[in-house]
Every structure is written in structure tokens, then in C-alpha cells.
């Protein structure tokens, strides 16, 4: 194909598109909406993935969770000593360890009381659980060893039981036992009831006696090298399996496997949204086909003239094909501008997390061009096949 013919066909397409601006705009509308919605929906999907990934990463990707499932033969279980020993033996790969248990309790200050979640852990849990304090201090090894009756409270408790005044140094009753408040957590979720701010934490040693618990069900480990977490997880699994003589009744998981699962889920969701938006692109293509068909019959005479003065079938085919591709391509570009613009507004206004998926921008544009070719081909063929004599005769 000769470049002059190509640029001439392109020029003719532009002339024809521009001489019928209103109709061209309406024709493009379907593609515009299609491309824009692919970009916006995948942007929202990407945003969802990012916010989930971020919150999981914030918990620490080196974290490994061991859960002993209840209802197992109590003679075959793993206790703190086993895990502690394992951690000591593998101190090069495991940097931190904390047992963890939780329960529901009533807390009381004077006459004010409320139900909340009690959790209990070791010193390392501050890092493992990414906890940060607004005031006071976290547990020390001494608190743990001596089963001190000390606690750290959430901001909901501070608000409800202490009227918002920093309660560090004050006493609080948990299920009737007096504890000293040594720290207050940083606010996480507007101090709402049942949120991350509604909790109270005590040393696990205190909790075991206090709650009369013999066996701890949950342990957290932290890998020294976050990239090595998969290996450490498998090692821990193997160790417990060997110890129990079975691979059932417990569960060892890490954040990266959770991350993978979440990413897979949000990926599926994003793909589904993009697919739905893709359908609107196809509908847009049908719109182009309709208009191109009308355009061919309106321009029968023009086609006849072109053929009489020497246009080949392929020249006519190319002219109409380029016209439909230019239409869909322009629609695609407007759609990209709209889609990215909408993303920019969403990000600026902080409506939701939004991450423009640039691969989808490219993909939707390429797809819109493909739609232009696919749906433009039939009308273009019709034009190319016109008999010049009959075409010249038409008005």
C-alpha cells in the first residue's frame, strides 16, 4: 500500500468525519463511554487491590500465624515451651514470637462499665501487630515474667470510662480484678464501639492465670527476612507435624499467602468489571457499523465517481475502513481523557482509593481500534463492491 493513497484516505476520512461533526460525535459516544468505563472500573478495582494490599502490608509481611484448632486431643498439642524452643533453635530465621489469646470481658471504672475484647500477648507483639501507643508504655519482659496486672486500653475505653482524659496510672477493673493502665493505643477508627479502638490488652502470662487457660491456641512468629517468610512457614509446618504426628488440627499461614489470595480475588473482580465495560465497547462498535452503513449508502455517488476515475476496490475499502478506525480511535482517545480525568477527580476528592491501570488504558484503546476495524469492515466491503455504473447513476 502506497503512502500517498493512505494519507489521502486518511485525509478524506477526516474531512468526512469533520463535515458531519454532530453525527460523528454521537457515533463515537459508544466507544467513548466504553473506554472511559473500562478505565474507571479497572481504576476502582486497582484502588481496592491497593488499599487491601497496603493494609495487609502494614500488618507486616513477615508475620506467620500458627493456630491450633480446638476439639483436638489435648494430650497432643503444642505449648508455649515448644514454640519458644523452636524459636530459640531458629533464631537466625525467626526474629520475634508472641503467644496470643483473646476473650470477652467486662471492664469497669467506678460505676461506668462496658463489654470489650480482651487480648493478651507477649512483648514482641507490639512490633508483630504493628501497634502504636498514644501515651504510656507497652509491656516489658518484667511485666510478663511476673504476671503483672497491667493493661493497655483503646481510645473507646478512654472516652467512655475516663471521659477522654489520659488514664495512664489509673486503675481499671477487668471482670472484677484491678489492673493498672500503663498505656493508651493510638486512635485507629474514630473511637467507635466494636472498632479497633475498642479493646484492652494484658500480658499473656497474666491472662492465662486470670482466664484459667492452660493451652494457648494462637502464636505469632516474625521472619527475620520478610522475603524468606514462605520458607519459614513451611519449616514451622513441618516441625509441628512432626511434633503432633499429624498434619491436621493446626494451621500455619502468613501474610503473603493472604496477600496472594486477596490479590487473586480483587483481580477476578477487576477482570469482571472490565469485561462488563468491554461489552459496552462492542455495543459502541455496532453503533459505528450502523453509521458507516448509512454513510456508504449516502455516498454511493461519491464512490461511483472515485471508481470511474481509477480508484481500485482496495482504495475504497481502505478509505471507509480508515474512517471507521479513525472514528473509534478518536472515541478511544476521548474515552481515555475522560477516564483518566475521572480518576484524577476521584483521587483529588478522596472519594475512594483509585489507581489508574495503565495497561488497561492501552488495552482498551487497542480494543477500540480493533472494534473499529471489525465493525467497519462490512460497510467498507459493501462500498468497495459497488458497481461504478449504478453508483454513478444514484443521486
Amino acid at each position, binding site marked *: 500500500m502506497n503512502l500517498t*493513497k493512505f494519507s489521502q484516505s486518511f485525509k478524506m476520512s477526516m474531512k468526512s468525519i469533520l463535515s458531519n461533526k454532530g453525527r460523528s460525535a454521537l457515533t463515537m459516544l459508544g466507544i467513548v463511554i466504553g473506554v472511559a468505563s473500562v478505565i474507571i472500573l479497572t481504576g476502582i478495582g486497582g484502588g481496592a487491590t491497593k488499599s487491601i494490599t497496603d493494609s495487609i502490608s502494614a500488618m507486616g509481611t513477615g508475620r506467620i500465624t500458627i493456630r491450633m484448632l480446638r476439639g483436638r486431643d489435648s494430650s497432643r498439642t503444642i505449648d508455649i515451651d515448644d514454640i519458644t524452643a523452636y524459636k530459640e533453635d531458629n533464631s537466625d530465621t525467626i526474629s520475634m514470637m508472641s503467644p496470643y489469646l483473646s476473650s470477652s470481658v467486662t471492664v469497669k471504672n467506678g460505676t461506668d462499665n462496658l463489654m470489650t475484647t480482651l487480648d493478651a500477648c507477649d512483648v514482641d507483639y507490639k512490633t508483630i501487630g504493628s501497634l502504636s501507643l498514644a501515651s504510656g508504655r507497652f509491656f516489658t519482659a518484667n511485666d510478663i515474667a511476673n504476671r503483672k496486672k497491667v493493661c493497655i486500653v483503646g481510645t473507646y475505653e478512654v472516652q467512655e470510662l475516663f471521659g477522654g482524659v489520659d488514664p495512664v496510672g489509673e486503675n481499671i477493673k477487668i471482670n472484677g480484678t484491678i489492673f493498672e493502665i500503663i498505656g493508651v493505643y493510638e486512635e485507629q477508627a474514630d473511637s467507635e464501639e466494636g472498632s479497633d479502638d475498642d479493646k484492652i490488652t494484658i500480658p499473656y502470662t497474666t491472662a492465662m492465670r486470670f482466664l484459667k487457660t492452660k493451652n494457648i491456641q494462637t502464636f505469632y512468629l516474625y521472619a527475620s527476612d520478610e522475603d524468606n517468610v514462605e520458607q519459614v512457614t513451611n519449616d514451622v509446618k513441618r516441625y509441628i507435624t512432626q511434633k503432633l504426628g499429624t498434619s491436621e488440627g493446626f494451621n500455619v499461614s502468613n501474610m503473603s499467602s493472604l496477600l496472594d489470595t486477596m490479590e487473586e480475588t480483587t483481580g477476578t473482580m477487576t477482570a469482571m468489571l472490565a469485561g462488563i465495560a468491554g461489552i459496552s465497547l462492542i455495543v459502541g462498535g455496532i453503533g459505528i457499523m450502523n453509521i458507516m452503513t448509512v454513510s456508504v449508502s449516502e455516498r454511493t455517488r461519491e464512490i461511483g465517481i472515485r*471508481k470511474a476515475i481509477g480508484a*481500485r476496490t*482496495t482504495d475504497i475499502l481502505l478509505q471507509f475502513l480508515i474512517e471507521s478506525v479513525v472514528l473509534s480511535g478518536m472515541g478511544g482517545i476521548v474515552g481515555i481523557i475522560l477516564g483518566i480525568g475521572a480518576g484524577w477527580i476521584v483521587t483529588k476528592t478522596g472519594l475512594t482509593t483509585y489507581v489508574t491501570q495503565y495497561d488497561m488504558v492501552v488495552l482498551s484503546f487497542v480494543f477500540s481500534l480493533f472494534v473499529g476495524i471489525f465493525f467497519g469492515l462490512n460497510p467498507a466491503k459493501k462500498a468497495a463492491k459497488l458497481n461504478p455504473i449504478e453508483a454513478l447513476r444514484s443521486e
Partner: protein
Amino acid sequence: MKGRSVYMIRLENITKTYKMGETEVHALAGVSLHISPHEFVAIIGPSGSGKSTLMNMIGCLDVPTGGRYWIDGIEGSKMKDNDLADLRSKKLGFIFQQYNLLAKLTAYENVELPLIYRQIGAAERQKLVKSALERVGLWDKAHHKPSELSGGQQQRVSIARALAGRPALILADEPTGALDSKSGIEIMKMMHELHDEGNTIVIITHDLSIAKQAKRIVTIKDGLIVDDADNSKDCKGAENVKASDLHDNMNTAAASL
């Protein structure tokens, strides 16, 4: 091959049959015609005579049902669409009754279009367009759209378009049919000039006064050539006979409709 092409146009026993429902219409019933280079021929006949079909055949727009034809020594009768398009592009310049300029293109672009389809390079194209528009005296209107030109001017642009590619044959279908008499005379004057410059010209018309200006008049009736007369000499007598003959023909054709 080239050496044998004594004729610019050579039609041998051309037939063209259309099926209209059950009945067959013989638009051309066996036409043989030879036109040499530098001839100025008028093909005349009433409507329905097969004149348009003959023009389509000479213009390489149609393929015959039977018989063969050659344009400048190249056989067009067995060609496929794309090859016919190339043949038209290389050998023919069309002038239509309704000018048939593309409304969205300027005069310049209209003249340039067949050269683009012929894949002539940009520099060469510019030269050809300029000389063609200058030839018809419209270089100053090169960037006007057809709608900004008078009928006569539009027809001159269309002549420039036919001329630009230096065709072997200029084929004009009722070139003055849509024009007022003054513009018509002007266009015919130009056709004469083009002939004097060595172009081969075929005019298809039903207008005897136009036909009479040609050097040779071919009369077609009912799909057959009924008369082929040399008009280059002053032979008033024969001409009068032909004229009355033609009027009879036209009357018969009108009556049969």
C-alpha cells in the same frame, strides 16, 4: 503487442444482455467500432439506444456479455474489477454531464485525485495538476470548492481532472448537457482545442448540434451501429439526411416508450 495497436479503441462484435425478469434486453447487439488515435468522434443516439452501455464499455466500466474490446491495445473485456480500475486510471479521462466533482474537495484536490489513485509521486502530481488547471484557465480558482464555482467552471475543472493524467482517450458523456448555451459553447471550444493538441476524444450525446462538431459521427440505434459517417469534410447533404434520420429514430424511440 504495442506495435499492433493501430486503434485507440477497438470493439469487436460486442454484445451486452441484461436480464429484466424473464425477458432479456439486448442493450448492445453486436457492435464493432474502431477509433484511431487523434480522432474526434461523436456517438449519437436516442435514449434507450444502447449509447450509455457503449460508453460504459469504452470507459472500461463494464464487461461485455460477448465480444472483445481493446483500449490502446490492452484488452479490457476479460478483466477483473481492480485491473479495469487500473486501466481506467491509466488510459481514460472522464467528463460527465453532471461534472461529478467531489463536493468536499477543492478544484485542486479533485484534479489531483485520479493521479493519487495512479500512484504518481507528489512533485510530479503537483506539476500535472497545475498544468491541467492552467490549461482550462482555472489555476486562480484552484482552492475553491465546486459549490463556489459556476456550472461552466465546474465542467472545466472536470475537464482538467480528465486531462491531468495525460490519458490516451478523453471520454465525454453529454459534456454540455447541464450547461447554459454560452457555457456549452465554451466547453465545446475547449474540446476542439484539446483535439487540436492531439488528444483522442469521444463524445456521447443525443444533441445533434454537438455531434455535428465532431469529425466523425457514429449513430447507434437499438443496440446496433446504424451509421458511421465522416463529418470532417463539408458534406451538407449527407448531414441533413442523417439529421432527419436521427429525428425519425428518436421519434420511434419516444413512441415505443
